[in-house]
């Protein structure tokens, strides 16, 4: 599936001047505005506590914003969201295939009626042989793949990922990064991806939102105008190094400006 150039993409979600305050004291997020377009791969990058998870939870509708609005273009449908958390978050009592079935099951689809789509999703993440295994029989990376298969099995408009690979080793992480891009190319999904890693964000995304803490806010957006598919060539390209440097500097800046941006 071809992804349109950045400027030509249709918007699917708007965050308008969103604030989130916890307990009337902790400002987790201040005046965040963001338009998510169809096919975007957006990374939220920032130091711990800058409100990345909060932003994701707001978009997922797990809590309401204190101020501001979050609007879906054309209203939010039931199948619009897929989510991958930092932990695989699988049901230990169910097999891999039954775990991937969950989003369908909650819509009242029998296992038989969606078996093909479940198998397809498992094949996409390379786990077609593990449908009958229990989560405990899988390695950390494999569990994460199951979690990804579950998030994309319903073909959602938007997939939210909160540091999905943070707990994995570097090798597995790179492999999953490659796979993730391939998956995205296949299904043309829109992704918002939270990460601590500059390199991960430059490798994966076409828009990087650099965030700062106390109060949590977006300080800069960096566009990575490199076409997909991206592979090892992109990892070693001079342009990659340049943008990584620029992103890194922006991130460094957030550590010193503190309240200056107010």
């Amino acid at each position, binding site marked *: 599936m071809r992804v349109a150039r950045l400027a030509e993409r249709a918007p699917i979600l708007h965050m308008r001047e969103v604030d989130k305050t916890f307990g009337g004291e902790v400002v987790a997020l201040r005046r965040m505005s963001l338009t998510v377009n169809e096919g975007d791969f957006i990374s939220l990058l920032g130091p711990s506590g800058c409100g990345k998870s909060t932003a994701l939870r707001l978009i997922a509708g797990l809590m309401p914003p204190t101020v501001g609005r979050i609007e879906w273009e054309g209203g939010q449908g*039931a199948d619009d969201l897929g989510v991958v*958390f930092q932990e695989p*978050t699988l*049901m*230990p*009592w169910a097999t891999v295939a039954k775990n991937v079935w969950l989003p369908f099951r*909650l819509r009242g689809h029998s296992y038989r009626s969606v078996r093909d789509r479940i198998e397809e999703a498992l094949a996409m993440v390379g786990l077609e042989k593990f449908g009958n295994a229990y989560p*405990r029989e899988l390695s950390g990376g494999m569990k994460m793949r199951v979690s990804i298969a579950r998030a994309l099995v319903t073909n959602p408009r938007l997939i939210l990922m909160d540091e999905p690979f943070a707990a994995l080793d570097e090798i597995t992480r790179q492999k999953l990064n490659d796979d993730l891009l391939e998956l995205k190319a296949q299904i043309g999904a829109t992704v918002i991806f939270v990460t601590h890693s500059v390199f991960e964000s430059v490798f994966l995304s076409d828009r990087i939102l650099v965030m700062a803490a106390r109060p949590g806010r977006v300080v800069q957006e960096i566009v990575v105008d490199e076409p997909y598919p991206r592979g090892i060539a992109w990892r070693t390209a001079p342009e990659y190094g340049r943008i990584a440097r620029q992103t890194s500097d922006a991130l460094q800046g957030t550590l010193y400006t503190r309240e200056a941006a107010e």
Partner: protein
Amino acid sequence: MTVSETSASTRAETGSGPMYDADEERRARKKRVEAIAQWVIPITVMAIAIWYWDRIVVWNGIEPYILPRPGLVMRTLFEDWGTLSQSLLVTLQITGMALAVAVIGGVGLAIIFSLSRFAEMSFSPFAVILQVTPIVAIAPLIFIYVESRLVGLLMCAWIVAFFPILANTTLGLKSADHNLSDLMTIYRANRWQRLRYLQIPSALPYFLGGLKIAGGLALIGAVVAEYVAGTGGIGSGLAFRILEAGYRLQIPRMFAALFLIALTGVIIFATTSLIAHLALRKWHESALKRE
């Protein structure tokens, strides 16, 4: 210990020789020995204890109405099997029924509590009061108000068995993984789906833990209640047989009845443990074998 290790590892590297080395073989043997010892040791110790009991009686010339020999207890068990087996049946029946009602009531109430905070606020004080008041103190009142002896016994056994199931299941229903719970919200699961697909499976290990405790407590409740009820005749359980035998100084029969009660307890425990194992063996940490 290094001699065998180094020779084994060189063999493994060159790829010749057996697939397993001496260490591996030793570990396998140790495992086999442990598997057998697991059964042999407790049985042997038990046999020695019984034999020693027998010897103490013989060596000290203790009269059977003070401490009978184990053989005599067994003989009494067979001779009085007619009465004792009927009493055993009654005790089993009361315990089993009380446990069944405790499971239905405990789980049902736990689910209601989890669905409605108001129900929990309203009724949990009653559950706690029932639990903390000793059953021997409540039992006499129950037998005054309740006409049927059987129903009275059942109520007593139920009261003690029901709380661990309620408390454990309530805790279990609340302990579902937060991320999974968020996932349910994101996929817009309704209350019933959340309960069925997330909370009930999460609560299963807790419930089964409660069931193990409740099984033992139901038996205790049934026995204690019968001591309180005190009246005999047809339809009396093992506890009454013990009381009766005590009055008549038939000590061997007391032991025989006691043996049956202990056996019942062991069987209940084994059954509930087996149920827990079968239900959890595929996925729960408690039932997994670790390599």
